[in-house]
């Protein structure tokens, strides 16, 4: 029953991803490994599409992943799965919001959760980089051929541009797509 599986997988994602959209990435990679529903390259594409479409990043990725896995109903089931734990937890917390906010134990938990969240997002970034910046099928020992130099140059340029120009990420995504087409990145 693919829809039930999808629902449960995304419930788990919604329950354990703390810090918003990018924090769902490690769970998508785990799903990719354990279920084979989509590939690492699919996930990189999902991030790109989700960043350039309105709505929360995590919601968009869940919809996309669900569609890739189970068509339109899959997209709906995955998204509802992702939001269900949130709604339940917030409805409970809102009954004693003030207490929760100033609770020392909550604060201490976040002392551990924040670096964990950064680590998980950084590790997800490595997964994307392994697809975007490296030539597949080439051994690491042949470093010159292993690195996709075209991609590295583009990445450095975008990084510099984002530091200097306060443009919306969508614009950089569009530029990257154009560069990819002109210089035949694939």
């Amino acid at each position, binding site marked *: 029953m693919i829809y039930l599986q999808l629902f449960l997988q995304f419930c788990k994602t919604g329950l*354990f991803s703390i810090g918003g959209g990018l924090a769902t990435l490690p769970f998508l990679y785990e799903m990719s490994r354990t279920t084979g529903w989509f590939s690492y390259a699919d996930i990189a594409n999902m991030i790109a599409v*989700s960043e350039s479409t309105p709505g929360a990043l995590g919601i968009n990725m869940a919809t996309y992943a669900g569609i*890739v896995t189970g068509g339109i109903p899959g997209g709906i089931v995955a998204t509802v799965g992702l939001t269900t734990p949130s709604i339940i937890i917030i409805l409970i917390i809102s009954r004693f919001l003030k207490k929760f906010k100033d609770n020392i134990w909550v*604060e201490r938990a976040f*002392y551990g959760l924040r670096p964990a969240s950064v680590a998980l997002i950084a590790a997800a970034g490595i997964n994307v980089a392994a697809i975007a910046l490296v030539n597949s099928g080439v051994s690491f020992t042949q470093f010159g051929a292993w690195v996709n130099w075209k991609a590295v140059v583009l990445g450095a340029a975008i*990084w510099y541009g984002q530091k200097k120009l306060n443009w919306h990420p969508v614009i950089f995504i569009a530029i990257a797509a154009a560069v990819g087409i002109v210089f035949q990145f694939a």
Partner: protein
Amino acid sequence: MKELWELYLCFARIGAVTFGGGYAMLPILERELVIKRHWVTIDELMDYFAVGQCTPGIIAVNVSTFIGDKRKGAAGALAATLGFITIPIILITIIALCLRSFADLQVVKNAFAGIRVCVCVLILNAVTRLWKKSIFDVKTGLIFAVIFALTVFSGSLPITVSPAILVVAAAVIGIAFGPAGDSSTGNKTEGASK
């Protein structure tokens, strides 16, 4: 019923114009809900964000649920959240279905190969932004290093640890070894974004 419908429509509109979610929606929520409709105060809104980003799930959904709940209880929470996700679901569905039929075109492959490079940079930026607020002493550095290593090398390790377990472990470690009563180290109103 009319009020629920109003909540739904209002959040549908917000969902349609928010790129990225998270803090990107704060100015929009402020304009729509605080200034125009007087549904919540700006202080309440900031509280919702502060708590919404340190509770599980998507920040935008958490904040929508808070506001809906404040207006109309659990039904309002559902109406607001469903409203928020309606337009994105429709848009992503259309895009995903289109992409599936065009995915084999060389031009689409090239475009996405370029876009993936941009995604790397976006993630790098998110990590550097979160870094300062999250990793500020030896213990937080250690937590980062261990979880990063376990996740990156999960393919070559004999056992794979689920991110869910890592998250729970990090919370437990924080409770056990976190700072005692010193609130200056953990400013959760400014912690993570997105």
